C-alpha cells in the first residue's frame, strides 16, 4: 500500500476524521480548501457526523475497489447504501450538496427518483414527500385535462 498524504478533517461537532487525500478530494469543496490550507481543512457543517462517516465509507470504497470490482457488485453495494429512510437520505443529500461530491449526489437523486417512480399516483407522491397541493381547483382541473392521456 502506498503511503499517501492524509488529510485531517474536522466537522462542526469537533470530530476529527483522517482521510486519504485522494478520497478527500472527491469533494470539490475540500479540494478547493486544501489547495489553500496545506493538510488540514475545517469543515463547518451542522449535524455532519453520520453523513461524514458515510461519505467517507463510500468514497473509500470507490477508490479502493475502482479497478477490481465488477459493475454488478458496485451497484448492489450502492443500492444497499441508499436504502435508507427519507431523513437519512436528506442528511446524505445535504452532505453531498455542501461537500460537492458528485457521485454521492448522483446516488441520492437517483434514489429519490426511484421513490417517485414507485408511487402509484400523484397523491401518493404528495404524501411521501409532504408536498402541499397549492393549486386552485380550476388550475388543477386544467392541468389534468391537458394531460388526460397520462391518467394523472
Amino acid at each position, binding site marked *: 500500500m502506498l503511503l499517501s498524504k492524509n488529510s485531517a478533517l474536522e466537522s462542526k461537532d469537533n470530530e476529527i476524521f483522517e482521510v486519504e487525500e485522494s478520497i478527500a478530494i472527491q469533494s470539490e469543496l475540500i479540494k478547493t480548501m486544501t489547495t489553500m490550507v496545506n493538510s488540514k481543512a475545517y469543515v463547518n457543517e451542522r449535524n455532519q457526523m453520520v453523513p461524514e462517516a458515510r461519505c467517507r465509507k463510500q468514497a473509500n470504497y470507490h477508490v479502493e475497489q475502482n479497478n477490481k470490482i465488477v459493475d454488478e457488485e458496485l451497484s448492489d453495494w450502492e443500492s444497499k447504501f441508499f*436504502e435508507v*429512510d*427519507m431523513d437519512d437520505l*436528506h442528511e446524505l443529500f445535504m452532505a453531498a*450538496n455542501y461537500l460537492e461530491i458528485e457521485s454521492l*449526489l448522483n446516488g441520492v*437523486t*437517483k434514489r*429519490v*427518483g*426511484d*421513490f*417517485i*417512480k*414507485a408511487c402509484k399516483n*400523484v397523491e401518493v*407522491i*404528495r*404524501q*411521501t*414527500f*409532504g*408536498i*402541499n*397541493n*397549492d*393549486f386552485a381547483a380550476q*388550475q*388543477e382541473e386544467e*392541468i*389534468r385535462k*391537458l*394531460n*388526460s*392521456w*397520462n391518467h*394523472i
Partner: protein
Amino acid sequence: MAEQVKMEEIDRISDLHDSILIHILSFLSTKEAIKTSVLSTRWRYLFDLLPNIDFDLEEDLCRKNIKSYSTDVIENYMCSVDKMLLFCNTTNVNKFGFKCWIRMIGSDRFNGWISAAVDRGVKHLDLSTSVLPSSTLPIFTCKTLVSLKLGKYFVLNVPKDVHLPNLKTLHLHSVGFLNDDSVKGLFSGCPHLEDMVTRKCDLGEIRNFHISHHLLKTLTIRYSYNSFQCWLWINAPNLTSLEYYDRLVAGYSMENLQSLTKAVINISACKTFRADATTIFKGICDVPSLVLSDTSLELLLRCEPLPVFANLIRLDLPCHLRFRYSNPLQKGLETLLSSLPALEKLEFYQEVLCSLPEEVPSCLLHKLKTIKITNFTDEKYCIGKAKYILKNGGVLEKLIIVTASHISVAKKWISKTLFASARESKPCFILII
C-alpha cells in the same frame, strides 16, 4: 424498497434548487416526469426543463389495438409533445426521441417539432414514424447533432447540402434512398461520422451505394431490399469493424480496409450461384478476425484462386445447414485451412469439415491453439475428425466439443474415446459439453 415509506409532514423536497429537481426527474421517463406537473405550483413547469425528451406513442398510451385509439386522446398526446418542444425555448434539448407507428401526425406538425429541437441545439435524434418528412426538414443541417437514428418508412430525401459537422452515429432503419447522389451527399456531409448502421433499407433506386469515408470506424449493413441491381462500394481506411448480413448484390468494390480488425460476412442463401463474391473476400483478406455464414464459406471456396488470409487469427463458422447433406465432392473447411497460415482460434460446426486432408494444414501443425467443434455426434466419421485434430495439432491447448442435443447419452463414450486418442500436443485440454 425494504421499508415502508412514512408520510412526511415537512416538505423538504420542493425547496431544493431547480437543477436538483431536474436531476431527480431525469431518472424518470418523460411520461412519468410529466405527471409531476400536478403536484404543486412549484412542480408545474419543472418538467419543461428536462434535457431529454422521449415519446413513444404505443408505449405511453398502453394500447395494443390500433382501433382503440380515439382522436381526442391522440390530439391530447400530441399537444403534450408540442408543449415540451415548442413552448419552452430557452433551454437546450439534449435528446429528442419520438416513436409512433400510426399515421396520425401531420407532417407540418412533425417538422415543427424537429425545427424546434434543432433550434434548441439537439444532440441526439431518434425518430421512428411513418410521417413523410418534407424536404425542408432541418435534420440535415443541424450543427449540434451527434447521433441520428431514423427508422420506419422515412424516405430519405437528402438535400444537396448536407451539413452535419458533429455527427458521429448514423442509424438508418427501413429508409429509402432517392438516387445515387443522395447517398454520396450523405457521407460527404458528415465529415466526423464514426458509426453507421443500415437495416432493411430500400435500394431500389440506387445503382451505386458508395460508402467512402476517411473516419468511419464501424459499418453494419443488414438486409437491404431490392438490392440485386446495386453495386456496393466501400472505401474506408479507418474502418475497424464490418458487419454484412445480406443477399448478394450486383457487384462489390472493397478498398483501403487496412484497419479492419473484425469482419462478419453473413451472406444469406442465394438462388443463383453465378453471383461473384470474390471481391468481398479479397478486400478483407488482411483481417485478423472473421465470421462467415455457410453460404459465405461456399462462395469463398469457389474463388479461383483462393485468397490467402495472411493475418487471420480467429475464424468462426456458426452455420452449417448447407453442409448438412454433404456429398463426397463437396469442398469444405479443409480446403480453406491451407490459406490460413496464422490461424490460432477456430470454431466450427462439424459438418463444415467435409474431409480430412492428407497433407496436414500448416496452421494445424504450428499455430492452432484453441478449437471448438459444435453439433458433434458419436458417429465414426465425426469422431474421426476430432481424432485427426488431436493427432496433428502441434500446439493445441484446448479442444472443446459441444455435442448435438440428441446424443447427450453418448457423451461419456465420446469422452472416453477422445481422451484415449493419440495427441501430438501433450498439454492439450479436452472439454466435452
